[in-house]
């Protein structure tokens, strides 16, 4: 036991001290943060340039009725200025020109001319403003003709937004608000994380075993410790590297999330903004749908059983990792050079890739037969079961899946240790599957 700890310590410290580890651990959250923050940042600083739009109103419906907004000014111009600006739009005073035809009320078509493609935002702004004017006119006409009192207000009151609450009914009729969207996102994140960790750290185990074999240090070491101790020390040491990286990412992630909040409006700020909008527009109904959504989301995040998910994540990470890394260790022991790894890698990586594909379908139908069976098969269960857990999995299924995983990895570690023990001392032989089978039968 003491010697396993020594090996574990070496495996752990040499990797954690590596520049590449520190670099990747720090860089990953920065990349993630950049992906989250930069778009928001750019959006917030986006259109701070005031643009003047030249409008030629042939129909004379809109004159003076297009309201300026903060960065967009509408200026109505006569025909000749419009024509001269159009011929040399780049050097004109206008960012874009709007051409409203004299028979606009019939054609309902407006042309926007500009030197460059205009932004989607600006385009919809122009469209909304023109539509707003027409709708207002029509509404006024209807109100005038029907002469029903307060019609305007009554019509506005017909606008409705509905909320679709999905409710999960637990044992004994306990009712919980659930969210399919949140389940999917969490299922995807955790399933994918297990996939990533098995791959990254499984290959790291293989590389480590190969390094020991290639540098010929392995015989020196196994004259001091049993091959099984060396293999387990390495596997557990690297698992700790993985968990360290995961923990660091969680900490950095929280830090970055906190920092990035300053770029997004907080719920309180959002509420204030909503109020301002409501005050400005008397037609707007109280309680914006967006705000409801945020509050719902927060409520639903609260109902998710995070201790269960994190607990299961750690279990399935360790179980899946042990299962696969022991196979990676056996492959690493069998080969002399990296190129020989190919033929053995495929059967190992195939179930992992299948898992990730099944995971996607399991997220859509977490209780379907595919999701069920693949979350029972130990080679795919760590990823598929992890994807199902946020949706709620019957306890017997969870326990059965865990039980099968434990049995399988114990058996797999036992088998691979036998291959490993023989493989690390074999040089110059390009091994075949048959050869590996033979090694399995050797007496220790």
């Amino acid at each position, binding site marked *: 036991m003491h010697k396993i700890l*020594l090996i574990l310590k070496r495996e752990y410290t040499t990797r954690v001290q590596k520049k590449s580890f520190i670099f990747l651990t720090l860089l990953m959250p920065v990349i993630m943060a950049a992906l989250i923050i930069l778009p928001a940042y750019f959006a917030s600083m986006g259109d701070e340039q005031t643009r003047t739009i030249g409008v030629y109103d042939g129909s004379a419906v809109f004159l003076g009725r297009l309201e300026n907004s903060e960065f967009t000014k509408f200026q109505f111009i006569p025909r000749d200025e419009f024509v001269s600006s159009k011929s040399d739009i780049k050097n004109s005073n206008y960012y874009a020109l709007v051409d409203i035809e004299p028979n606009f009320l019939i054609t309902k078509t407006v042309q926007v001319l500009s030197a460059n493609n205009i932004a989607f935002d600006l385009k919809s702004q122009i469209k909304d403003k023109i539509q707003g004017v027409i709708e207002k006119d029509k509404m006024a006409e209807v109100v005038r003709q029907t002469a029903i009192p307060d019609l305007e207000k009554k019509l506005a009151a017909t606008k409705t937004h509905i909320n679709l609450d999905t409710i999960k009914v637990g044992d004994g009729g306990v009712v919980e608000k659930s969210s399919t969207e949140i389940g999917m996102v969490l299922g995807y994140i955790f399933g994918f994380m297990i996939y990533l960790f098995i791959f990254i750290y499984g290959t790291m185990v293989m590389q480590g075993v190969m390094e020991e074999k290639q540098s*010929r*240090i392995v*015989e*020196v070491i196994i*004259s001091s*410790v049993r091959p099984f101790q060396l293999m387990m020390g390495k596997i557990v040491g690297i698992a700790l590297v993985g968990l360290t990286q995961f923990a660091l990412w969680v900490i950095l992630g929280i830090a970055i999330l906190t920092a990035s909040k300053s770029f997004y409006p907080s719920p309180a700020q959002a509420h204030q903004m909503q109020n301002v909008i409501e005050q400005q527009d008397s037609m707007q109904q109280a309680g914006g749908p967006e705000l409801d959504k945020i509050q719902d989301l927060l409520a639903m995040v609260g109902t998710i059983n995070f201790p269960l998910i994190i607990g299961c994540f750690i279990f399935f990470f360790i179980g899946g990792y042990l299962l696969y890394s022991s196979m990676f260790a056996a492959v690493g022991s069998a080969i002399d050079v990296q190129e020989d790894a190919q033929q053995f890698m495929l059967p190992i990586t195939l179930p992992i890739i299948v898992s990730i594909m099944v995971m996607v379908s399991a997220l859509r139908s977490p209780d379907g037969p595919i999701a069920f069976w693949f979350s029972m098969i130990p080679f795919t269960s760590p990823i598929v079961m992890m994807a199902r857990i946020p949706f709620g999995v019957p306890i017997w299924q969870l326990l059965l899946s865990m039980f099968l995983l434990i049995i399988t990895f114990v058996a797999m570690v036992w088998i691979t240790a036998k291959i490993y023990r023989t493989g690390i*001392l074999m040089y110059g032989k390009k091994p075949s599957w048959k050869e590996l089978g033979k090694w399995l039968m*050797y*007496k220790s």
Partner: protein
Amino acid sequence: MELFSAKEVSKTYSSQQALTNVSVSVEEGTIFGLLGPNGAGKTTLIRIINQITAPDSGSVWLDGRPLKPGDISQIGYLPEERGLYKKMKVGEQALYLGQLKGLSRHDAMKELKIWFEKFEITSWWDKKVMELSKGMQQKVQFICTVLHKPRLLIFDEPFSGFDPINTDLITREILQLKKDGATIIFSTHNMESVEQLCDHIALIDKSKKILDGPTQEIREKYKSNIYDIAYRGSFDLKSHDLANKYNIIKHEQNGHGNRLSIQYPDGSSSRELIKDLVEQVELISFNEVIPSMNEVFIKVVKQNS
């Protein structure tokens, strides 16, 4: 006193017989040469001693009781296929290997200081192994093997990769270790160093032990009635009886030193040879030729095939 022995050890790898009923006995405080052609089974026997593999049948003994896992700390092994972690620092790595053999960090540090000073390599401590030359790496490896003061040392081709100066250094260290009471099993193809170092040898060929005994006795045993003779005067061998009776291996006749290598047939004796010679010439010297280990090795292995 016997420190180590293997009794009737056999080992088979799938269809290949690696060892067949091999028994060896190693006396405490001696150097035991384990010889044999490539693929004879030496490495398998060494791995069995290190408990890297277990024999199919037979037993291995240390200090008069069966070898057990805890004995690892009493054994130091320098394998033929050896290396170090390339990216690890020399000192850190030596400490690690010492600790794996059961030394505390503190003791390992203390011993390493002594050895590094003795070999004048203290400046390598913080270097990465890949920055060292092959010979330098071998030195570090030698230190790691003997660091924990094992009672039984196993050296498999310890001189490979060393220049003559370092070979000499390691030879002296091995002899010093023996003087300090260590027992050494020494496997090599370099027969000169066997003559120089080994008290006792065993030769394994095709999985079987075919020769075993004290080095000097074995060489004596394989002498083949050949004598080197120096004489004064001159005589014509061809016109003489001697050429029929004896096998003339070499004959040089010039001004001052006349020399003759001659072999008498079985059934004859050195006394008869001398008698025949003194009748002809004045003898200056008469020496029996003792075969080198190299000659013994080749002869025995050829006979066995």
